[in-house]
């Protein structure tokens, strides 16, 4: 019996030996398993269909729209630089014009990062979409145009805040060291990108409001042309938009009516040209948190949050000289925040239903039709002096601000007789300052017109020098980009 059992063992052993060999072969054939690709979408295989191209274009927007590095703090920073607004707490340095600490150096560095992140995402579209194998040429041109439009918009902001910046385009996006390009070179890219966008963008974005249209391209083009003193072209381009008849101002009777433009749930107004859009699903606008006060109920009513990081004062000359009949002035309301008598806060962007800091869903208006009108008015005044067309554009803005019928002449209209071309330009600039409070326009206006030093002195009593016109290039750029050796002056 025992012997038999042992025999069975032996036979089993025999089989075992073979089995080990089989295992060895199986194992060594595992080398195929060494080819592993991630179960995710790859740059290497994307950008083929229209849907893929669209998703790639969509990725340009998030770094600009969202969070504590996007448009909200960027805009707040620009507004602190103006002659009518102040920053509280850590934002105060931006109105003091006395250098930036690490917090604020990083803060402006974050904006740089966000613009360039958006530019990278635009470059990926511009680089890969033309090679897509399942799209028509028309579709390719449209998505490339969208990307170029956004790239131009980003560079337009970069060049105004940092001056000469490195131009990252589709052909050099993976080169680490890039020198700064001249301001002229940056504007040349903006020009060509916008003109491409103007040609290939669609007229209409009703299906996806907020997507780039040719009208958005024309508007940014007008702004850039005016900024670079190409007045005639700026005039013609903005006139084209006005003459399209597609846009009109939203009428206002009372202060609360501003909610029809800036409030929650207004959808696409007749005035909207280029807005960033928001929803509740983790895709909110951070700006209302920055400017509102927890006790007013204007933001997160009942929840009580708000940084009220920006404020003004009734004793500021800008505020003092402002006519009380202007409804826009009444967007400022008094609030004691421990910063002295006469402090006022803004209620242009309010969302009582926001759930958290990032939860507001007010659109962020980058370009409204009001700006098209004023761009035209200024370009017209600078090319042709005082004209009816120019005054008409300006007066539409003024009438609306005083609660008047926009289309009808009124007693507060500016009259051609009261202006020289120079004083008209000044009046238009002042109108822009009233109209675009907290929309990030004034600082650029002050810089391009050369009036920053004078008006900041007059209205806020701060002295600024040339070095305050540009922000510091972030340390992470200086440390790792060997092509940049010099920071902006003063840093």
């Amino acid at each position, binding site marked *: 019996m025992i*012997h038999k059992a*042992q025999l069975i*063992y*032996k036979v089993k*052993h025999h089989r*075992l*030996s073979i089995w*080990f060999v089989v*295992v*060895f072969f199986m*194992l*060594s054939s*595992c080398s195929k*398993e*060494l080819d592993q690709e*991630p179960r*995710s*979408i*790859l*740059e290497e295989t*994307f950008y083929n269909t229209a849907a893929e191209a*669209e*998703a*790639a274009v*969509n*990725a340009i*927007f*998030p770094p600009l729209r969202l969070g504590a590095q996007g448009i909200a703090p960027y805009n707040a920073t620009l507004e602190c630089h103006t002659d009518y607004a102040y920053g509280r707490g*850590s934002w105060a340095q931006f109105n003091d014009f006395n250098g930036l*600490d*690490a*917090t604020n150096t990083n803060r402006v560095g974050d904006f740089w990062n966000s613009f*360039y*992140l958006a*530019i990278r995402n635009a*470059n*990926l579209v511009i680089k890969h979409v033309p090679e897509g194998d399942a799209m028509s040429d028309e579709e390719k041109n449209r998505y490339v145009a969208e990307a170029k439009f956004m790239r131009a918009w980003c560079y337009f902001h970069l060049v105004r805040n940092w001056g000469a910046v490195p131009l*990252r385009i589709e052909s050099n*996006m*993976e080169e*680490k*060291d890039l020198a700064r390009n001249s301001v002229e070179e940056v504007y040349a890219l903006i020009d060509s990108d916008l003109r491409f966008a103007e040609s290939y963008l669609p007229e209409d974005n009703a299906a*996806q*409001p*907020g997507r780039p249209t040719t009208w958005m391209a024309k508007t940014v083009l007008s702004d850039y042309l005016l900024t670079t003193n190409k007045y005639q072209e700026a005039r013609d381009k903005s006139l084209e938009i006005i003459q399209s008849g597609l846009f009109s101002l939203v009428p206002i009777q009372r202060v609360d009516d501003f909610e029809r433009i800036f409030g929650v749930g207004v*959808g696409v107004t007749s005035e909207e040209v280029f807005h960033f*859009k928001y*929803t*509740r*699903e*983790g*895709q909110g606008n951070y700006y209302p948190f920055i400017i509102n006060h927890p006790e007013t109920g204007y933001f997160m009513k009942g929840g009580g949050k708000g940084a009220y990081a920006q404020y003004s004062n009734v004793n500021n000359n800008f505020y003092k000289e402002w006519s009380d009949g202007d409804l826009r002035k009444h967007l400022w309301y008094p609030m004691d925040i421990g910063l002295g008598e006469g402090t006022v806060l803004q209620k242009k962007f309010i969302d009582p239903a926001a*759930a*958290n*800091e990032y*939860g507001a869903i007010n659109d962020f208006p980058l370009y409204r039709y009001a700006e098209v009108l004023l761009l035209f008015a200024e370009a017209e005044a600078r090319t042709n002096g005082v004209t009816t067309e120019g005054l008409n554009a300006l007066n539409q803005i003024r009438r609306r601000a005083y609660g008047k019928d926009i289309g009808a002449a009124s007693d507060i209209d500016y009259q051609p007789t009261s202006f020289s071309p120079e004083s008209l330009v000044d009046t238009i600039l002042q109108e822009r300052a009233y109209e675009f409070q907290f929309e990030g326009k004034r600082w650029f206006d002050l810089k391009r017109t050369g009036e920053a030093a004078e008006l900041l002195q007059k209205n806020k009593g701060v002295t600024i020098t040339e070095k305050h016109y540009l922000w510091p290039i972030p340390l*992470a*750029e200086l440390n*790792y980009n060997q092509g940049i050796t010099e*920071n902006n002056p003063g840093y």
Partner: protein
Amino acid sequence: MVVRPLFYLMQSFKYISILIAVFLIADVLFVKLSYAQEIPTPTIANDTVKTPSDTTKAKAQDTISGIVQDEQGNALPGVSVMVKGRPNTGTTTDPNGRYKATVDGNTILVFSYTGYGSKEERVGTRKEVNVVLQAEQEALEEVVVIGYGSVKKKDLTGSVAQVKATEINAFPTSNALQSLSGRAPGVQVYQGSGAPGPSMSVRIRGSNSILGSNEPLYVVDGFPLSGSNPTILNNADIESMEILKDASATAIYGSRGANGVVIITTKQGGVEGTGNATQVDFEANYGIQQIRKKLDLMTGPEYATFYNLRAANDGVNPYFTQEQINNLPSFDWQDFIFRSAPIKSTSLNIGGGNERTQFSIGGSVLAQDGIIKGSDYDRYSIRGSIQHQLSDKLTVDANATMSRLITGRKDSNGGARGNSLISAILGAPPALTPYDDNGGYRLLSNAFNIAAPDIINPLNWINEEVNKTEANLVLANAAITYKPISDINIKLLTGIENRDDRENMYRTNRYQGSTGEARITANNEQSRLVELTANYTKLWNERHNFNVLGGITYQDFINSYVMGSGQGFISNVSGWDNLGGALVPLVPASGYNKSTLLSYLTRVNYTLDDKYLFTVSFRADGSSRYRTANRWGYFPSGAFAWRVSQEDFLKDHNWISDLKFRVSWGKTGTQIEDFYPTFNPLAGGYTVFGQDLHLSFAPETDLPNRDLKWETTEQIDAGLDFGVLDNRLIFTADYYRKTTKDLLNAVPLPTSMGYATTFQNVGQIRNSGVELGLNANIFKGDFKWDVTANVAFNRSKVLKLYGGGDIFGDELKMNVVSDSRTILREGLQRGLFFGYLEDGYDENGQIKYKDLNGDGTISNADRAVIGNPNPDFIYGLNSSMSYKNFDFTFFLQGTVGNDIFNASSIGSTVDYVSGLNMTRDVLNNHWTPENPNAKYPVISNTVNARVSDRWIEDGSFLRLRNIQLAYNLPVEKFNLGWLKRLQVYVSGQNLLTVTNYSWYDPEMPSSGSDYLSYPIAKTYTFGVKAGF
């Protein structure tokens, strides 16, 4: 490139294996023919006598008996007693050392016992054969586990340190790695945080890699773990840990060997020499942990005085009136938050078996509460191992460990200005109490108009947020070992490591500014292993001892996760268990990663005359993480050792019991942690047009590098082992030099690229050093005193950076100080702190910096090396004394010459703008016109600090890690048959620390950077150990 042909040779191993198969078949046939000649097995036993049936050569059969004792006359139970020439027969001595056997007069009995060698006695006419066994030179006969096998310590050619169960269990720790600290030369254990649970990191001979984890590879019972910390194991489960340090020992693990290898062997049943008795070990202890040190912060009135001072300096009205100051309370937030917390652990291990089957099972519970409420760590684990001999040729064994870990986490790292738990504890104004008049949490940010807007009452984290991870871990493997002939072992091992965990987070709607937030992340990590190895051992002519190993292994690593979350809860009752009840459901996420590793390995050990020892090994690793062209890495090694003490010319020098020289060379690698570093995956996201979400896809922040290569480390080692006076004194010394080439690094990119980092092979780093170890049995006998000590010196040097330029490390991002703070520069040590050098104060009390390049302004070109986190040397010293029934041990450990970057202190010493509390020192020693050389600058809102030498402190420390007094109860006097051992002890951990470091604790993560980490506790422990 020499290795490539070698690799092809390895692949031809396939064909060799066919030959082996043929050989095996022949072997089976041979055995089949020969089994008929086998004779039935004679047996002897301690109470039954079996007479061999074959009596042709019969002599008188007698029953003899005897006792086996050691040199001191103690009975030795479990000694194996065998008849020479009949290896499968035998008995063992009973608990009193007695045995019986039935033999004839010509029989030679062989007595053997682990650690005592063996002794042969011819029975002759004696009826009683008593034997005294002499203890061997234990240290040399010990078996040391090495990669894919084991050797006797005397036969080692590599540098391997062993840490045994007694050391691992010397004092209670929640992580077995903690017990490695200071035990072996060149092994540094970093406890970066005092938070309960596994946040250990281990460095063996310094850090080679910039990007890699620098953690050694952990191999548990033959299974190379995918993760770093073997958290699944309880200390009591571990039989031994072997630390493989030089390349000769680690190269067999190829691409994972560069940081050293820690081989962990769990307890196995049926320890040789203990006979068939089942052993039961029980252990329980209870400890109380307390914060080791408190920081000296300002009181309420001091706080108010301080900020009035700031107001005066800044030309603002005082914030507090004198009357207010007089009436302000002084609340100690540190006392309020840090508590005494218990740590409890219990374990039970049962082991036993017989000749054919051995088993071991164990179970343990560890419950460690944190000194911050809610940061608790619980581990429940059970473990079993079984080994069974199916036949002479076939053995199966299986090991499995299952653990459940429950970790409560409290946000304790990083942050600034009170927006994280530790920074809030430090920054909270002492003039404020935690609760307001209505009993709610006081809003610290609103209480004073000077308060930091970011500061959050610490009670929010403690009471209103729960972060709890529940993990189930399994590590299981099974092996079949087949011995076709006595010299060959073929082993097929399969195993799986699996971790399923669920990270639960809930923040209530009472948390400051929160509407309620819940998140659940379920992770799965698994790794599967199949390993086929063959081992051939042969002794030729009594002189040439060969051991040849060959094998192939395949391991894969898979991880996946799914995450769901929501915001806005009207009730906190359901916590994270009702995501559907969220007002705002957030977008879910999921992911999957897989990588594979296929390896061929071989090793040859050859010993000549027991004097000259040679080892060569080779491993080829193919990894899916690299593209085809760079996929295979080849890792050869060679070593030679000379046992000089075996030479005739030393044999007469009796005082030299062992002298061995070792040299080795080899190459090892480091796996890149990223699974797909050569691809550019696009991450999904959203943007909004109209009111609707639209999908977006773009790359994340890493720019892929398609040409990435293996990082390889070449190491040479020269060492010596020297034992004198019967090895009462053993001295070990090693010199090593490790050169790591093609260093992988996440190179930071300029942010204008839109990418933050890319992986590159950036350069070469060298680590070289000396390790010394000493093991001394100073006294033997009634009063025993053993001392082990070790010291290790390591120096690193950046040899080359391919781009030539400096590589900056991570950025510190605190509001008041933000910049990168470490640098890699050719010619310097690695990991150095880099920043500005302070130059006193200017006339306004502002910090001045040295203008190193003399261009008149302070720019980042004025930065220099400001500190070095690498210690000059590290050391450990363990002393254990015993007298009669008392054992007294203490264990010292320390580092010398390392710097710490004290980022923790930034908020509490120069960040004056946010109304934070400061250390009292700041109030007493700041700049005034009368005190221009003060420690701190002027108290003003305008103080601007940078990454500078201000934050660098000496991090040297000497720590009494453990001190213990134990009493072994004289159980033999109790006459309880069932109780074999009983020990009670009291001990203390971290009771004494000598350091100049100003903050909570000098034990740092290896970066040497202290950034608001959870303070380390000291512990008083009481425990009991029993054996049945």
